[in-house]
């Protein structure tokens, strides 16, 4: 055999062997317990966000829409959950062209001159031009935090969707007066979704100078809407990651893609003296367990304990279901939360599964169009600490 033949044979064997060795190692090692030696245990950062005495959350509205069937019919008709939210032709950006044919520019042109002070007239126009304006509700919450020295702070988390519904809810809970009196220090937007953000003129009607915090990732239409609504205060775009606000309170921005072409979510952490960590969320698209795990790796909190949750947990917002949601229901018990106030996009079925699993769900009163006591409903209050 010539040297050339020998070299060719060696190469043939080597080429085959590389594949066998590589695939063999992939198959035998990649999912074996041995692989865990490759994982580095990230050191806990233990960021000190301070501590507060207590947190109180008033549910202004959790009913973002009133009928799942109508909302999902719109989504289906317009082309699904990936369609840009400004294109559905939902209120307030109706242009009269029908489902799926809307646009921010055409919609806002009809009402811009009426924002934020003449919302009743604006809503009349919106009702004429939009798809299913009667189904629009909104998500908004008042968060009150008491510092250790007794100082109290009030913040709004989101402002809902329908001008009409949100104004009613603001008046019902006295938010209108608080805004007028400048008692509310800032407005935090959890994300850009219609049901959390589009009701902005209602808040600005009462306090156009309020400071607004948005998570990075807002699209150009959303940024323009803040201007078009007549906002005159400070606008702070919060970067991805942890952002301390006041002692005992921080927000955290997650860079995540969300349905209806939205990007990024901001949620709130509170460190309550002698109790532990409290999570307050708009929709929690990042997932409540991811939120808890992030707190574990990033923040120092009392008793190293997860204490409470309030808000939408975005599990089955349309009362849909998927086995992966059962993974959450099964796993949540491992985190030891002592008070769970859930609503909005959690899904009533999910809340009931939590209750059936024996989790400490704080049930509500099912008033003001909230549908089930498994939810901490509209007008209900939850306190932590």
């Amino acid at each position, binding site marked *: 055999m010539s040297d050339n033949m020998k070299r060719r044979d060696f190469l043939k064997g080597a080429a085959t062997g590389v*594949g066998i060795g590589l695939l063999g190692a992939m198959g035998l090692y990649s999912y074996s317990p041995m692989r865990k030696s490759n994982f580095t245990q990230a050191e806990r950062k233990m960021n000190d966000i301070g501590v507060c005495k207590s947190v109180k959350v008033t549910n202004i509205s959790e009913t973002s829409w009133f009928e799942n069937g109508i909302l*999902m019919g719109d989504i289906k008709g317009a082309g699904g959950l990936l369609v840009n939210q400004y294109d559905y032709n939902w209120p307030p950006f109706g242009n009269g062209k029908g489902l799926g044919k809307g646009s921010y520019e055409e919609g806002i042109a009809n009402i811009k001159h009426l924002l934020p002070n003449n919302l009743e007239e604006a809503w009349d126009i919106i009702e004429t031009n939009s798809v299913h304006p009667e189904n629009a509700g909104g998500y908004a919450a008042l968060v009150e935090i008491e510092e250790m020295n007794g100082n109290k702070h009030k913040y709004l988390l989101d402002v809902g969707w329908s001008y009409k519904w949100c104004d009613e809810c603001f008046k019902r809970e006295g938010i209108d007066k608080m805004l007028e009196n400048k008692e509310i220090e800032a407005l935090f937007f959890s994300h850009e979704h219609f049901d959390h953000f589009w009701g902005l003129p209602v808040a600005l009607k009462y306090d156009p100078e309020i400071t607004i915090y948005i998570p990075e990732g807002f699209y150009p239409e959303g940024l323009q809407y803040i201007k078009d609504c007549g906002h005159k205060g400070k606008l702070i775009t919060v970067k991805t990651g942890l952002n301390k606000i006041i002692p005992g309170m921080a927000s955290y921005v997650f860079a995540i893609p969300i349905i209806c072409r939205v990007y990024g979510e901001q949620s709130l952490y509170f460190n309550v003296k002698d109790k532990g960590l409290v999570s307050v969320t708009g929709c929690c698209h990042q997932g409540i367990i991811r939120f808890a795990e992030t707190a574990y790796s990033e923040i120092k909190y009392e008793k190293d304990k997860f204490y409470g949750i309030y808000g939408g947990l975005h599990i089955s917002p349309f009362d849909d279901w998927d086995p992966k949601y059962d993974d959450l229901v099964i796993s949540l018990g491992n985190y030891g939360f002592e008070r769970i106030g859930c609503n909005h996009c959690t899904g009533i079925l999910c809340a009931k599964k939590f209750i059936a699993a024996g989790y400490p769900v704080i049930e509500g009163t099912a008033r003001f169009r909230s549908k089930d006591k498994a939810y901490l409903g509209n007008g209900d209050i939850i306190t932590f600490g």
Partner: protein
Amino acid sequence: MERFGEGYLEERKLVKRWSGPIPALASLGITLAVFYITWWIFQDPRGVMRMYTPYVGYMYCRWWLIIMIWMVYIFNFWPFKRKWLETAHPLIKGSIMTAVSVGILVLLIKVFFEGLLGNFGLAYFNPNQLEKLPGITSFFAIEYSALAILMFAAIASWLSPAWVVACEEAPWQDLKQPAKGFSILMLTFFLSMVVYFVTMHPHMGILYHPWQYFTSIAPPYWEQFADTVSGNFHVSWIMCCTVVVWLVETIWERYPFNLIKNDWARRSASFFGIIAIALAMHFFLYFAQELTWGEAIRGTRRAFAPDWRWLHVGEMAIFFLVPALFVSFYCGNWPKKYSMPVNVLVRTAITLVAAIALYIAYYKTSHLFLGTQKGFSHPQQFPMIPMIWLVNIWLVHHWFMDNWPAWKMVPKTAEEIEEDHETHRAAIADVRWTPRLGAGLGFGIAMGVIFYFITIWALPSVYAAINIIPGK
């Protein structure tokens, strides 16, 4: 005796109209243009029909792939006659055969799955039946039934070609069409149904409340091993099987299984070897995510959820299929000048590099033109849909249209066909056991293992340096 398309793909000679890489680049340009136009018409959430809901679009896309595999690989173009295949203009052939494939597609979904199975067997195949359940909206009824139907397709898209590629159509390889086609179709459909019942049916059984203990295993048996109750665990390895079948058939030329002389040993080794390679891929691609993003945490959503990680394994696998098919369809399975194992290794390396580049490019840019969402883990982000849609267009172009217009189809002469067979036999005979081959094999295995451990060592820092989606 009428000849249909038996051996048509093998016995056609595709002659380049232009020299060099121009035909491949021109074909890429044309097919990408067709892809984008049809994507806009059928799938794009901003387009005309907006089928990317995502499951509806995914279901049609996936089943269309299988129908074309059935028509070409299982039925050998029957009932289209050989003369017509050789003489009809590619545009006419492409239009007619595409229309037939779409007709079968609609019949299968609307009549067989939704009409027959959904109305008389399993309600979850029919959205109208699901809508009768309390609390289920029309949108999710359609999505759930599309999910069930497409899961069946995922399994069939592995088993249907596997019976031809691995099992060499046995035991019906000598039958005429359509008897051979129907025999293979019945068997692979039956096997798909069995695999469906033990992989995806338990997923569907816990999709509703309360869990359907009476009709499915709940929680599913894979829960502890896969760290999730979701059927995405199975989607992952089945998707890998689909990809590996085509790697074996195209850039690997069925190597190394074609070295086995005994027919049944070769067929069994091929069939189970494909599964074994797919499982290796399945576990490695999951591990790769753990290395780059951190360990999955059960109960989380999105990128940290085990169920999504398994799904993403399938999504990553599809990125390997696209360059492999391009090399095979448009680059003449380059290179061919070395020994078969070296050719296979070079093609695999090219595919690997191209797949990684495509993955990075897709996640960096696709949201800018496909109407999809930025990010890896959006629940409606399914790279499998655009990738399979592109593959479908390539199948139409390569199988139904003979790569027209950049290539011209000329039937091979009997001598040319015999010469091809002889070349193939010689290429296989060229790989025979010698002490030097054994030494090379041992050296290669060691190199493969070393390469694996270097890869897993380097992956976290390489991934961090690339930073595909800033902010993640």
